[in-house]
């Protein structure tokens, strides 16, 4: 799980073009949206594409997005549960 979290941090930095941010700067439990990393709705779309492209996971219920994308911890947990 820790390895997946580190990989996710690196992927988010690259995909969302987070300038001057290193994987070590992101706390796994900190909120990705709002106060934490400060991501927004366009970033949420980018993460949906990333999940489908890199992990072949489709989010069937968009209402659950908020819960799934809350932090690196919740994202990693969701991937682990849903990956074949």
């Amino acid at each position: 799980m820790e390895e997946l979290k580190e990989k996710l941090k690196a992927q988010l930095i690259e995909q969302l073009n987070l300038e001057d941010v290193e994987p070590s700067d992101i706390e796994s439990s900190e909120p990705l949206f709002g106060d934490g990393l400060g991501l927004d709705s366009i970033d949420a779309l980018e993460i949906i594409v990333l999940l489908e492209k890199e992990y072949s996971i489709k989010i069937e219920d968009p209402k659950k997005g908020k819960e799934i994308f809350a932090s690196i911890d919740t994202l990693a947990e969701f991937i682990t549960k849903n990956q074949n």
Partner: protein
Amino acid sequence: MDIFINSISAISPVDSFNQENLLLQTPEMVDGWYKCIEPDYREIIDPRKLRRMSKAVKMGVTTGLKALNDADIANPDAIIMGTGIGCILDTEKFLQQLIDNDESLLNPTAFIQSTHNTVAGQIALLIGCNSYNFTFTQKTHSFESALLESKMLMNDGEANTVLVGGIDETTNNTVALMQRAACAQSDKDAGYVPGEGSSFFSLSNEKGTNNIAKLIDVSVKYGIDTTKDLERALQEFLVKNGLEFNDIDLLLSGNNNSESKWYNAVNDCLSLEKLVISYKDYCGEYDTASSFAMWLGTKLIHEQDAQKVLIYNTDEGYSHSFILLTKC
């Protein structure tokens, strides 16, 4: 109505952004074209906002904000822009993703940023400007159209201050396509060199101590078949503004190293004794290169002895544009 230029800002291949005083040097050609010398954007734009901006957006926002700042205008009555090919880098990214991902799983950012009006929209978002916002895209006369619109808005009393600019970015793919179509050369003496740039201007209809030049008139002519017709059109343009050929003391010519009867005709009208600068020697050829010429003309009026400057540009005779600037 008099229209004054209160500030100018440009990012171009000649390091125009940080220049206190005008210093024109021949740009370095990289990959067969003139690339802009860009400032460190992180010193100007919030890095969190910078991450989604492509080169064109960064250049446009930076020059637009600087022009507003230098004119001490927090919120203009209008933001009007001209661009020929828009945010081509993000368009290429988006199209490449379409191919690579077999038309599925497309990242939204490149698509959102690829539209032509991204730059004017981003400037408005950053300064919280809800006023008139428009982007013209009419090939080589996109900037002239933006200027005409600015002039009309001010003449009609709908705006007192306008931020107007011209911007185009170039990519290696664009240059390769132009070379394949044999309309650009990497050898400067054999044809024209592609370029890019962003130039913005704060316009005002109020006379004041911060006026640096006057925008007298702008005109775009179509359907000119002969050089005689062009001479007549130029004469009419000058007479309309109370001038004759001999009154112009500097011609900024869009001649791009090609033997053009049109540019030669305008040179001949104004006589060879007049100073002629081929401005595309410094910025390269791109659809809104005349905005760089307006930056250069304003600089020469403000910092040197130029009194009446004429900017002439044509796209191989399809259309012709004149921009007239004078000292205040």
